[in-house]
């Protein structure tokens, strides 16, 4: 077994304390006995795995923890305000787009035919409500 293969196997396994009847495990153990550098690698890896899990003693919450959480909750009004602030850019863009369309929109067919000022008079005359 080559060193690279041995180290890949060591990285892939969570623990080397697996079945010793496995041919690959036996081969790996044989390699570790003959290769000092891979044995060092294996020892480092085992130590790191132990340190990763065992380094932290679980902390316990104190009796006032829930009160602190409740006190940190954002005010509903503040939340609405924040939501409004998040929406503000979108609303502004929408307003600007509407204003821009209003000033640059093409004239309607009635405006083309009769002119913008005559449209209302024409409509009134057509409906019989005019003078």
């Amino acid at each position, binding site marked *: 077994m080559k*060193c690279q293969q041995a*180290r890949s196997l060591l*990285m892939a396994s*969570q623990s080397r304390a697996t079945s010793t009847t496995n041919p690959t495990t036996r081969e790996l153990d044989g390699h570790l006995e003959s290769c000092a*550098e891979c044995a*060092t*690698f294996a020892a*480092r*890896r085992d*130590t*790191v*795995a*132990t*340190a*990763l*899990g*065992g*380094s*932290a*003693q*679980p*902390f*316990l*919450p104190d009796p006032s*923890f*829930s*009160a*602190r*959480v*409740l006190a*940190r*909750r*954002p005010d509903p009004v503040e*939340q609405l305000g924040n939501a409004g602030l998040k929406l503000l850019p979108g609303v502004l863009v929408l307003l600007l787009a509407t204003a821009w369309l209003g000033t640059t929109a093409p004239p309607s067919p009635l405006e083309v035919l009769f002119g913008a000022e005559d449209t209302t008079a024409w409509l009134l005359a057509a409906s019989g409500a005019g003078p």
Partner: protein
Amino acid sequence: MTTIAAMLSATMNAIAPVDADAELVAAARRGHDDAFAALVRRHERRVFALASRFFHRREDVEEAAQDTFLRVWSHLDSWRADAPFEHWLTRVCLNCCYRRLAKAPKTEELEEATLVAVEHDPTVTVEVRRLLARLDPRDRFLLVLLEVEGWSIAEIATRLGWSQTNVKVRAFRARRKLRARLEEGLS
């Protein structure tokens, strides 16, 4: 040392029926602060224990736990009672821890905290302590789940709500970096 899975099952066996969570969540949704406070008290030990896996300073664990419950409170409507509340809470907590680790600058203070935390263990040699301190916190997060908890890629993806591809890529990178660190000084 107990794993998170063992801790979860032990707590679930020890406490009142799961329905109690649903009732407390429903009451909290209706605006009952007492119900939310009861929900926090019911699960605070589990959240602290989980956060302690990733942070070595009490203030960091406290902050991560507070973030978790604040997120729970602001997303109570998104919890559906068809899954146990503990599972959802675990997911929220893990993601809060990950975000916190991802944001944390890699400072001397963090490294020192890690070194102090592992110093009590006589089996940890100086070189390994240095190696651990130099690991990216996000990589350490995944390595804890993979190496210590023994979760598979699929389990991590499910519990974090990430895609399996995402977990696979991150796990591959974390292991590759760890291997490079372990090989330092070796041929």
